[in-house]
């Protein structure tokens, strides 16, 4: 097992530890996916510590066309729609509207928002292991120390929209763990309305709530006790919260997508002890967030955003890559215009960093209706290493390390 601590997902924070309470299937026979048809997009690197770069393509809502692609580092081959090919007998394939992809040792977890389930698969051969029935799952985070997964869900929102003052706007956080010989839900707790990102920092769990559907934006981060899941408090931050990024110890950030007309997207800092909020200032205030990733190896948050995010006239958008240290002390801004391939992207939707080569993998979701693509750039975007056509709504890149 390679001692590389890289778990960097737009929707998961990795806290690396030795303990592991959820049984990881010990798959020795990982045959099958070598023969899948694919496209050689670059020269393979057999010495790479990584096994594959996976891309979860969201698909179009209601069309059940989410797909799982992978790039294999050893042979430089990009394989599309691997899950359906490796599981031809599963009715309706991977499902509808993939919203998040992350790995827990030798298990891959794909959150299928429109299918109301979580697909747990073997990333060695993309074969189905089991599913979890969770209504409208959004994002996942693993507690590697205690061996649990946490999944936010829009579900179970019984808010009475006809009587907005009466009900509390709610969503759910599910706690997942080993139950018998299966992985199952072991606890659930009410959080804010339309919860998105979730992260652990110290002895607390932080959930960002977005709201926005019917009843106006939520602006709260729900704070829970990490051991008991008990509600601690709500912190009011900014409307339409999205990602929570933490180094697990002392640094905690929450992003807002803004309200699209009066409040910009950006990053807010939360003190995990005092729970006080610091509004963005200085260079941090310039950061606009469309996609976010965190690499615990170099302790940087990678953010993609555009300065002109309130332009609705269909004119060409000029994106930037912001690299911010987890303590907020330094911000570097690289415009996509340094590389025509990057500049031509329509909708950069996900970012993942390779800690060994320092390369950046950026997905382009395009118009979310036709096939998107995935690009590999060097660390400052100036060079394109390779690119491949992906599926519809290409959005969630995640690196898998074989254990």
């Amino acid at each position: 097992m390679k001692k590389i601590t890289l778990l960097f997902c737009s929707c998961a924070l990795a806290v690396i530890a030795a303990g592991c309470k959820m049984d990881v299937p010990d798959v020795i026979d990982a045959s099958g996916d070598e023969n899948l048809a694919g496209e050689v997009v670059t020269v393979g690197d057999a010495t790479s510590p990584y096994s594959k770069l996976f891309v979860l393509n969201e698909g179009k809502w209601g069309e059940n066309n989410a797909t799982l692609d992978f790039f294999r580092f050893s042979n430089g081959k990009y394989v599309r729609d691997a899950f359906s090919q490796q599981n031809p007998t599963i009715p309706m394939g991977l499902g509808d509207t993939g919203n998040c992809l992350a790995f827990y040792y030798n298990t891959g977890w794909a959150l299928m928002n429109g299918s109301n389930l979580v697909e747990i698969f073997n990333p060695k051969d993309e074969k189905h292991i089991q599913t979890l029935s969770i209504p409208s799952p959004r994002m996942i985070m693993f507690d590697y120390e205690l061996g649990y997964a946490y999944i936010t869900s829009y579900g179970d929102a019984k808010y009475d929209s006809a009587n907005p003052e009466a009900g509390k706007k709610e969503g759910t956080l599910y706690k997942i763990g080993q139950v018998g010989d299966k992985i199952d839900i072991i606890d659930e707790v009410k959080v804010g309305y339309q919860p998105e990102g979730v992260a652990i920092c110290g002895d607390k769990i932080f959930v960002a709530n977005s709201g926005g559907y019917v009843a106006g934006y939520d602006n709260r981060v729900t704070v829970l006790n990490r051991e008991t899941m008990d509600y601690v408090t709500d912190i009011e931050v900014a409307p339409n919260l999205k990602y929570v990024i933490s180094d697990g110890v002392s640094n905690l950030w929450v992003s807002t997508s803004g309200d699209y007309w009066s409040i910009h997207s950006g990053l807010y800092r939360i003190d995990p002890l005092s729970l006080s909020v610091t509004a963005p200032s200085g260079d941090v205030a310039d950061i606009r967030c469309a996609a976010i990733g965190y690499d615990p190896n170099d302790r940087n948050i990678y953010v993609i955003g555009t300065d002109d995010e309130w332009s609705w006239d269909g004119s060409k958008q000029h994106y930037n890559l912001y690299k911010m240290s987890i303590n907020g002390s330094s911000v570097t801004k690289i415009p996509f215009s340094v590389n025509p391939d990057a500049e031509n992207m329509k909708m950069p939707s996900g970012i993942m960093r390779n800690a060994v080569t320092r390369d950046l993998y950026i997905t382009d979701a395009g118009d979310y209706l036709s096939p998107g693509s995935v690009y590999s750039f060097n660390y400052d975007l100036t060079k394109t290493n390779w690119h491949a056509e992906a599926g519809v709504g290409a959005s969630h890149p995640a690196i898998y390390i074989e254990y």
Partner: protein
Amino acid sequence: MRFPPFISSFLGLFYAVSVLAQAPRSEPDSLSGETLDASVVLSGISSRGAFSGDSAGEAFIRSAPSIADVVRQFSGLQLKDYGGVGGMKTVNVRSLGSEHTGVFIDGIPVENAQNMQVDLGRFSTSSFSSVELRNGLSSSSYPSAREIGNSSSLYFVQKAPTFSEGKNSSFRIGVRGGSFGTFSPSFSWDAKVGKNTVSSFEAELLSSNGHYRFHESRFRTLPDGKVVGYDTTMIRRNGDILSMRVQEHLHGDNCVDRWNVTLYMYSSDRGLPGPVVRRPSDSVTSKDRQSDGNIFLQGDWTRDRGELYSFDLRAKYALDLTRYRTNPWAEAAALPLDNHYTQNSLFLSMSNLFRLGERFSLSQATDFQVNHLDADVLYFVYPTRWSLWNAVRGAYASPSLDMSASLQHMVAFDRFSDDARKGGFKKVNSSRSTFSPALDFSVRPFGGSPSFVIDGFAKRSVRLPSFNDLYYSVVGNTQLRPEKASQYDAAITWRKLPSGHWTGEARIEGYFNRLVDKIVALPTANQFRWTMYNIGKVDVNGAEVKTSLAYDRDMFREGEIGNGFSLLLKYTFQRAIDRSEKGKSTYGGQIPYIPVHSGTLSLDVFIRGWRLDVSVLGNSRRWSSSANREDFEIDPYVTADASLSKSFTFQRGTQLRLQLNIGNILGEQYEVVKGYPMPGTNAILKTEYCF
């Protein structure tokens, strides 16, 4: 329509009129049993000339299980069907999008400013004597200004009751039921209420649980040649509907004046089953529901003394209520939602016709309309639209040539509440103004004989952005321009004139359409926020071939029950190419949901009061994206439907009619819209008693 003979001959030169006068307006005696349905045999071809489009007459409409089943057989028309009794059914003509097709009842538009789509599921087969699709010129001699600028129009003509001698009223009670738990009783009462006025009252209840079985399957071949896959059977749920329709229609005609007044009331509550996607076995399907209430009152009055000047006045008021709600108590994944939409619209139109000598005529029309949409959704802007259309049309008609040229001007002014920048846009009240010219011709080169006709048209038309496109919370874009369509069409028709027992015809038509500024939803700079843009461009190269053959043993024999058959074959080729953005994988691809090849074959046989209709409809593969990759492909399909009916006439003129409709006889599993499977074989039995 009974024009005085002098006017008839006058107008006969004006081919649009002759179509109206002879094909759809034929009034079969409802008590004399089945008659040869001229407009089925002669679809797209009138006795004088020919037109681009298609039509269906009363007998054919009555044999069909629904209006959607009538129009889906029209050439060049794609029915977008979400499946089941309650599933929405809209039409898309020649790949221009359903918003471009105007739907008219007795010449008055059915309005939906909210999304510009008219659900044909609301209409009943028992109300209409003809349905006609027109791509080129309007079929009316008094077209409203709106009609003149439409890219294509679907005309519904309501029945005007007729009575056998000595009777002043007649009643019909009917019930139909069968598959999908369908139960639908209906009642109608026709009466003479004045010297020249008839009244027709109709009420219908429809209830259906909407359940049907379908299966999803996919097989793939492994590298070692083994075929693996799945084939799973499911039941469509939450597709139930309960609806009620009540309407009163007054029709008057005294040879100079003709008037229609209709009051229509419809109310329904239905489940929206949503797309079929992968779900865990313990998960419920969608529990979303929609309730509708639609009321309209419309009237038109035509005065025609056969002199230099005649006119048509039309007016309509419509109230449309929609409630859409989710049920998070029954479906954990649903977000709470309960929205109410109220649309009010008022339409006024005057159209004037000047006959300038034997060969020339000039018409002028002005339409005015107000639409208002009220809703209880967040950040709503309560839009009101005032629209004014003005059109002129000049026509020339001689035995061997008909020509007309028209120009329509439209100005639409939108006003909405602009407090703050709700939803993100800078709100500016806006107006949109467009010109739509059209030119068409019809040539009968062989001494004016309608046995060989060359016809064609060129036309530019627009469709306004809908209220949803412009103002839907957080998604709408108030800066949108109208979509613009250009159409060029030419056709050759050969026809064997009705002599003896046989009639036959063939028509070959080619067209080119270009759609620019197509309104498309796309994500903005922020991927969580979508909006509408005018970026789409579509080129359509199309061809249609229609042939028909009919035999009637009793043709021209007065009072006889028809004995014969008709055979109709239609083929449509449509290459609808996405030309939106060069360099994208969608560029050059066939646009979503349009088959390159489609066609229908229908056979009607009628013998001694029995009538059998069999129709076969085929569509080649389609794609759900303009990127024509295999993973977006929707399978080709062939469906066959049959209807068998028999009328029994008793003493004192009472009549019993039995009809059996069997849908999808081949049990084809297919989808028109991705994720919305269509039902397999189904049967509906209908009984009607007239007295």
